[in-house]
């Protein structure tokens, strides 16, 4: 494998790119024409050389290289489908190599539902180019014109005379090829699809049910030590004194110190843990500025200046006959809580560090290793095994840096595997958010005003696809940490970051206006939008649900909401049962419709939609990080409740809205976005009680019932 691909520098700097094709090892390396470009810039974008994406060996087997990683979202399968489709080979001819910085084309990271919609086109184009080259080679070999040739399952044959054929493997075999392909390869159309648009079983399924699938914690290196690292009790605490003498006295234990990195190492993780427990440290801890309950008021108090992201008409003016609505919505800090905590193994050989890490950004981790350890780029390699979940929480791979530093200090391979407590402590939480909306409708139930202001959640999915003539969207403190409003711990992306907050607020507000206008909430939405995709997606969910038109609260206990994220529209219709005595809400049914353009793998898309809805039940009903300043109080699943089997709706249905005119869009995140509002609206429809704060715990439901 390593023989086939020259080093990145070799390909990018050393090879004369106008020599185009070259045979290395047993495989064809196909280079196509490309403009000379700035090499550094090229490293920060997808390469034009298709050989960066795939290799065809002498047996016709294809290895596909992608800087994306597999964390459950199914891209090991969907990328293989895209490559197989465009290359003209069967799915089983393909082996995927993911997230290895020495082998794969550069990629920023696996997030934002970008794999299919942004990396997908690059991969498909490379595979299509390769097919074009194969056909050209075959034309020479078979002595026919290219337009007489057809490709199927890696065999090029004469149309109407399939006995005259040559395989991709044979074209590759033992020949040095120099050939130019300077035409744009044409992607296959939906009608031509043989592999895309189908739902093969997950390529990682068998490995994952048999215990063979490797995650970072399953990596074993000779002489490897397990590290347990001294952690502060709260964020921002500084060590006053540290005594490692008792830990050091434990047989076989190594204690290393470098600046603030202090760790106990042993070949057995439990012994390392015991040694860590013997380290005595005293800490200075900072005062808490705010906590779970006061965060929303705190943000509104300290951060007032906003960034107007969108504006039309005049939101300051008031018009005759307008009915005004003003509401504030609040959401909490949320944990990613993947079942696999952050884990990495690092090993140094001849000044080069290799890190196996559960990370959503292998190239980001490599760059960080280069920076923090002062290495040349060729001296750091990141290999990404399977991730046991990511959800945006593994974009930062602090554990990989820790492992690399400790391994260097210890002179042996080191595994850093965070405990569940460390996972909660160092998680990059989804920030708490506040949304304040002032909106208005006219006597006919048409929206006239939309003045939207969001604190700390960012404006993702806040775009207004309703036709209010006077509208503005203002973001205060983005998702970041300006000045006094600094978050007390790390924050970051979380499955459609902020979109759940924005859509919860917007679609709740829409419902409030619909109810006040005595208009059915679906009808109200349709009346106030001219966005065709919104209309189609809403109607698809409502039809499948069997939506019965009635103004809320109708007592049916059903709600609807729609969100837009990653190029995709997702609408959810929900029905709930509310126990008025306990405040307990059970979701009985969820119907999700999704317009995501061309669907690469329908069952894979449905898995993501179902997963979004099940995971979404968590932020809807229970997930709210308990903290006091830098003190993260939730440290395990006993207090931070994830959705369980008993929470499952009786029925979860998914509808893929047909839209083959549109290139494939994102699918990993959109369906989680409308969950909050769909269920809040259903609770309102059942009871007349309106919830303005997530999660909708029993206590909050009871309080809202009292007010209703």
């Amino acid at each position, binding site marked *: 494998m390593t023989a086939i691909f020259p080093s990145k520098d070799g390909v990018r700097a050393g090879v004369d790119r106008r020599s185009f094709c070259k045979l290395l090892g047993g495989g064809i390396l196909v280079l196509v024409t490309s403009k000379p470009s700035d090499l550094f810039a090229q490293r920060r974008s997808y390469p034009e050389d298709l050989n960066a994406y795939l290799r065809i060996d002498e047996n016709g087997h294809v290895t596909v290289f992608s800087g994306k990683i597999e*964390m*459950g*979202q*199914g891209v090991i399968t969907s990328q293989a489908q895209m490559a197989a489709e465009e290359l003209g080979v069967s799915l089983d001819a393909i082996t995927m190599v993911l997230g290895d910085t020495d082998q794969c084309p550069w990629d920023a990271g696996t997030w934002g539902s970008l794999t299919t919609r942004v990396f997908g086109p690059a991969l498909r184009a490379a595979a299509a180019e390769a097919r074009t080259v194969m056909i050209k080679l075959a034309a020479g070999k078979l002595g026919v014109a290219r337009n007489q040739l057809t490709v199927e399952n890696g065999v090029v044959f004469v149309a109407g005379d399939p006995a005259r054929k040559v395989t991709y493997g044979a074209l590759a075999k033992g020949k040095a090829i120099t050939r130019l392909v300077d035409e744009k390869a044409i992607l296959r159309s939906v009608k031509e699809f043989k592999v895309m648009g189908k739902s093969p*079983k*997950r390529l*990682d*399924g*068998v*490995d*994952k*049910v*048999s*215990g*063979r*699938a*490797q*995650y970072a*914690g*399953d990596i*074993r290196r000779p002489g490897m030590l397990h590290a347990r690292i001294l952690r502060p009790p709260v964020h921002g605490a500084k060590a006053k004194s540290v005594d490692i003498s008792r830990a050091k006295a434990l047989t076989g234990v190594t204690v290393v110190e470098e600046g603030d990195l202090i760790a106990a190492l042993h070949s*057995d*993780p*439990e012994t390392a843990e015991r040694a860590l427990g013997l380290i005595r440290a005293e800490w200075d801890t900072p005062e808490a500025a705010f906590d779970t309950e006061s965060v929303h008021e705190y943000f509104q108090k300290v951060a007032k200046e906003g960034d107007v992201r969108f504006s039309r008409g005049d939101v300051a003016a008031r018009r005759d006959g307008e009915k005004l609505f003003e509401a504030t919505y609040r959401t909490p800090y949320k944990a990613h*809580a*993947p*079942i*696999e*905590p952050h884990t990495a193994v690092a090993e140094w050989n001849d000044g080069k560090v290799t890190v196996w890490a559960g990370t959503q950004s292998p190239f980001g981790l490599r760059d960080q290793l280069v920076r923090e350890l002062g290495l040349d780029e060729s001296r750091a390699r990141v290999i990404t095994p*399977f*991730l*046991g*979940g*990511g*959800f945006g929480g593994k974009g930062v791979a602090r554990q990989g840096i820790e492992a690399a530093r400790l391994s260097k200090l210890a002179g042996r391979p080191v595994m850093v*595997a965070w*405990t*569940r407590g460390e996972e909660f402590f160092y998680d990059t939480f989804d920030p708490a958010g506040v949304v304040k909306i002032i909106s208005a409708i006219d006597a006919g139930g048409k929206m006239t005003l939309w003045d939207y202001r969001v604190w700390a959640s960012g404006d993702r999915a806040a775009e207004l696809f309703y036709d209010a003539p006077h509208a503005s969207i203002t973001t205060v403190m983005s998702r970041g940490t300006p000045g006094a409003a600094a978050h007390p711990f790390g924050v970051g992306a979380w499955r459609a970051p902020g979109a759940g907050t924005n859509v919860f607020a917007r679609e709740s507000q829409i419902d409030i206006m619909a109810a006040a206008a005595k208009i059915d909430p679906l009808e109200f939405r349709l009346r106030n939008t001219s966005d065709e995709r919104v209309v189609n997606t809403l109607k698809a969910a409502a039809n499948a649900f069997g939506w019965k038109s009635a103004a809320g609260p109708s007592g049916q206990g059903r709600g609807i909401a729609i969100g837009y994220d990653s190029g995709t529209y997702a609408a959810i219709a929900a029905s709930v049962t509310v126990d008025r005595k306990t405040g307990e809400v059970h979701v009985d049914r969820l119907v999700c419709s999704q317009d995501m353009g061309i669907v690469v793998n329908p*069952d*894979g898309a449905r*898995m993501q939609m*179902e*997963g*979004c*809805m*099940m*995971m*979404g039940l968590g932020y809807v009903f229970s997930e709210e990080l308990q903290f006091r300043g830098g003190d993260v109080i939730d440290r*395990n*699943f*006993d207090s931070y409740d*994830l*959705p*369980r*089997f*008993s*929470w*499952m709706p009786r029925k*979860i249905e998914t509808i893929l809205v047909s839209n083959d005119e549109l290139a494939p869009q994102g699918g990993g995140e959109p369906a989680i976005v409308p969950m909050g509002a769909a269920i809040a609206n259903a609770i309102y429809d059942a009871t007349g009680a309106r919830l303005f704060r997530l999660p909708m715990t029993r206590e909050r439901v009871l309080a809202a019932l009292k007010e209703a």
Partner: protein
Amino acid sequence: MNRTLRFQLNGKPVELKTDDERTLLWVLRGDLEATGTKYGCGEGICGSCTVVVDGEAVRSCAATVGSIDGKDVLTIEGLATDGRLHPLQQAFVDHGALQCGYCTPGMIMNAYAMLRANAKPDAAAIASGMEDNLCRCGAHPRIVAAIEDASRKMGGAQ
């Protein structure tokens, strides 16, 4: 206390001289190189470390290795026979009852023990029997469907 433990692991006899207070999970993943069993929470809450001991589901992160002395331990690596997936494993593949796959070994081992006690559970009984196994990806509906399917195909067998 250091002593010699004798037990069956996936049908093979194992003799291990070690401190019997060590945690079963780390002995399985370390000494015995059975890494299919996963660490998730370390406190017996999430179920990703579930193994089957004498037919019963056990949280290996909350059990000592001493507790398996003389017993029969089954982990995810021991479910397939002669290279053929166990019906539960096959059903998880067929139904796409996994995403990241990290909780999957624990899910399957818990389901295995559950089906020993109740060979034909309905969907509600499956949900209740799996209640304390956490899945963050939200594969729950498909996991229930897979277990139902497997129990049908197993017809009361193991």
